[in-house]
C-alpha cells in the first residue's frame, strides 16, 4: 500500500461513488477538473457536471442558484480563489441563506510549494470560520478525506473543505470513522496535547514520538473540523494535560490556533503555543524547505511543546 497519496485522488474516487448514491449531486469546477480530480465524476455523470470556466464568483453564485432547486452542488477551485475572490458570494448568497452548497478546495497552505504566494491559501480557514452557518473541514489523510466527503454531502448546509496539493502521508486505514465536529484522539498522553489539522497531523505524530524519547507523553488530536470546533476535546485536553500546541498549514491568526485560543481564553486559560505562519506570506519552494523556514517541522512542534509545558503553573 502506498504510504503517500494525494487527498484529491481519494476525494475524486469518493466523489464519483457519491454521484451514484445522490442523484441530485451536481459537481461544478472552474477549469481545474484534472487537479481537483472531479474528472472522474464528470466522466460518469456528464449531465451533472458543470465547468464554468475561470470564473470563481460565477462558480459560487451558480452553485447557490442550483441549491435553491434542491440540488446538492459541490463547487471546486483553489482555496485562494474560493475564500477570497468569491468570498462575498460564499458569505451573502450561500451562507446567509444557509444553502446546501459544498465547497472543496485544493492548494491550501504552503504545502502547495512551488506556485508561490498567489496560489497558497493561508487565510482561507480564518475567512471561512468567521462566516456564520459555515462548517470548515481540513482532513489529514486520504482515508479520512473519503469519510469526510461522505459526511459533508450528508450534512445539510454549507461546508468548506480544504485539501492540500501534494501527496499526503497515510495515517489511517480504510474504515476510519469521521464525525463532523468530533476530533479524533490518535495518541494518548498526559503531559501536553498537540492539536493539528491537515498536513500537520502527521508532523504532530512524529513530534509526539520525539517527545516520547524525552519522556514526555503527548496527546495528539486530529482536529479535522475547525468549525464547529470540538470544544469538549480541547477543554478536556486543557484540563488533563495542562499545556497545548496547535499546528496548522495556515496563519496562526484566525484558523485552528485562533479558534483554540478563543475557546481557552473564555473557558479554561491554559498555556498554548501556536505553530503555523506567523503573520507572513509564504514563498516558492520545496514544501519541506518551506516548513523548515517557517517553523512548522516536527522539531518545531517539540520545541513548542517544551515551551508550553514550561509555562504550566
Amino acid at each position, binding site marked *: 500500500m502506498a504510504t503517500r497519496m494525494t487527498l484529491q485522488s481519494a476525494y475524486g474516487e469518493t466523489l464519483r461513488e457519491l454521484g451514484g448514491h445522490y442523484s441530485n449531486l451536481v459537481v461544478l469546477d472552474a477549469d481545474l477538473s484534472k487537479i481537483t480530480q472531479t474528472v472522474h465524476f464528470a466522466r460518469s455523470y456528464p449531465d451533472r457536471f458543470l465547468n464554468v470556466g475561470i470564473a470563481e*464568483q*460565477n462558480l459560487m*453564485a451558480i452553485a447557490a*442558484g442550483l441549491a435553491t432547486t434542491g440540488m446538492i452542488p459541490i463547487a471546486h477551485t483553489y482555496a485562494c480563489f474560493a475564500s477570497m475572490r468569491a468570498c462575498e458570494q460564499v458569505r451573502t*448568497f450561500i451562507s446567509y441563506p444557509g444553502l446546501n452548497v459544498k465547497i472543496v478546495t485544493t492548494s491550501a497552505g504552503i504545502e502547495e510549494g512551488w506556485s508561490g504566494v498567489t496560489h497558497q491559501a493561508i487565510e482561507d480557514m480564518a475567512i471561512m470560520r468567521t462566516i456564520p452557518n459555515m462548517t470548515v473541514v481540513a482532513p489529514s489523510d486520504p482515508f479520512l478525506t473519503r469519510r469526510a466527503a461522505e459526511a459533508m454531502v450528508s450534512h445539510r448546509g454549507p461546508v468548506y473543505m480544504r485539501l492540500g496539493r501534494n501527496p499526503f502521508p497515510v495515517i489511517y486505514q480504510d474504515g476510519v470513522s469521521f464525525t463532523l465536529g468530533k476530533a479524533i484522539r490518535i495518541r494518548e498522553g498526559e503531559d501536553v496535547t498537540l492539536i493539528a489539522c491537515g498536513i500537520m497531523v502527521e508532523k504532530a505524530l512524529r513530534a509526539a514520538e520525539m517527545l516520547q524519547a524525552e519522556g514526555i507523553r503527548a496527546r495528539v488530536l486530529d482536529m479535522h473540523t475547525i468549525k464547529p470546533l470540538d470544544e469538549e476535546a480541547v477543554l478536556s485536553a486543557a484540563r488533563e494535560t495542562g499545556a497545548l500546541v496547535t499546528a496548522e498549514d495556515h496563519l496562526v491568526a484566525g484558523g485552528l490556533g485562533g479558534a483554540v485560543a478563543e475557546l481557552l481564553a473564555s473557558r479554561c486559560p491554559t498555556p498554548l503555543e501556536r505553530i503555523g505562519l506567523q503573520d507572513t506570506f509564504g514563498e516558492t519552494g520545496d514544501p519541506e524547505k518551506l516548513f523548515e523556514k517557517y517553523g512548522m517541522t516536527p522539531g518545531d512542534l517539540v520545541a513548542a511543546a517544551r515551551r508550553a509545558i514550561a509555562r504550566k503553573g
Partner: protein
Amino acid sequence: MPASMELIAELERKANGLRCDVVKMCYHAGSGHPGGSLSAADMVAALYFHFLRLDPGNPKWEDRDRFIMSKGHACPVLYAALCRRGFFPEEVLWTLRRFGSPLQGHPDMKSTPGLDMTSGSLGNGLSIGVGMALGGRIAGKDFRVYVMLGDGELQEGLVWEGAMAASHFRLDRLTALVDYNKLQIDGENREVMNLEPLVGKWQQFGWHTIEIDGNDMAQVVRAIEEAQRTGGRPTCIIGHTIKGKGVSYMEGAAEWHGRAPTQEELERALAELGEKGGNA
C-alpha cells in the same frame, strides 16, 4: 396572440397599485429606495400578475417560476407584488425595514414568503439565475427563471460572467430584464461609467435581445411573450424606463434613489397616482 386591451389595462392598474404601495412603504419605513422601485413597477406587475406560474398557498412549490430581484434595493416593489399576489397580508407591507419585520432592508429569502432569492449586493442575481435554470434542466422541470437587473449593476464584472455562462449553457428558460432608468447614486450612468452600446453587448454575449419602453405595459407583455417563444438561447429585455416613474417630482431625479417621502410628499405622490388600481 396579441395581449388583449383588457389584460393590458388590468396590468396597468396593478402596476399603479404597486407604485402606491411603494411610496407608502418607504414613507412608513422612513427610508428605502422608491426611485428604482417605481421604474421597475410595470415589468414586475406583468410578471407577478400575468406570467409567473406561482401558488401563493405553496410558496416553495418546486415547479414554480422563479424571480430574482438582482437590484435588491428595489425590494419595495417586489414585496408589494408578493403581498398583492397573496403571499402575505397587507399590514406586513407597512413594517418594511422595521426590527423583526419579514421585509428586510434588502431581500432575504428566509424571511419573506414567496421570495425566491436573497439579494442586495449588486451584480450577483444573473449568475444565481443561471444556477436555478441549470437546476431546473437537470431535474427535468420546465419552470422559467426571470432576473431583473439594474443598469448601474451592469458595471459589476460578475454580471458578464453570468451572461457568458447563460448563453454557453443555452438557457432559453432564463430571461433577464434590465430596468434601464439611466440613473445611479452618483448620477447618470453615462457619466459614472458608460454602459453603451448596451444592446450590442448582450447580443455579442449570445443573447436574444429585445429593446422596449419598460414603462409601456403592452410592450412589456409582448417582450416577455417573445422571450418565452425564443429557443436555444437566453433573452435579455432591455426596458428603457424612467426612475421614479409615476410621481412627477421623483421622475429622473437621482436623489430619489434612496430617500423616503415626507407626509406631504407622500400625499402629493398618492394624489398623482390617484391611489386607484386593483389593489385598494
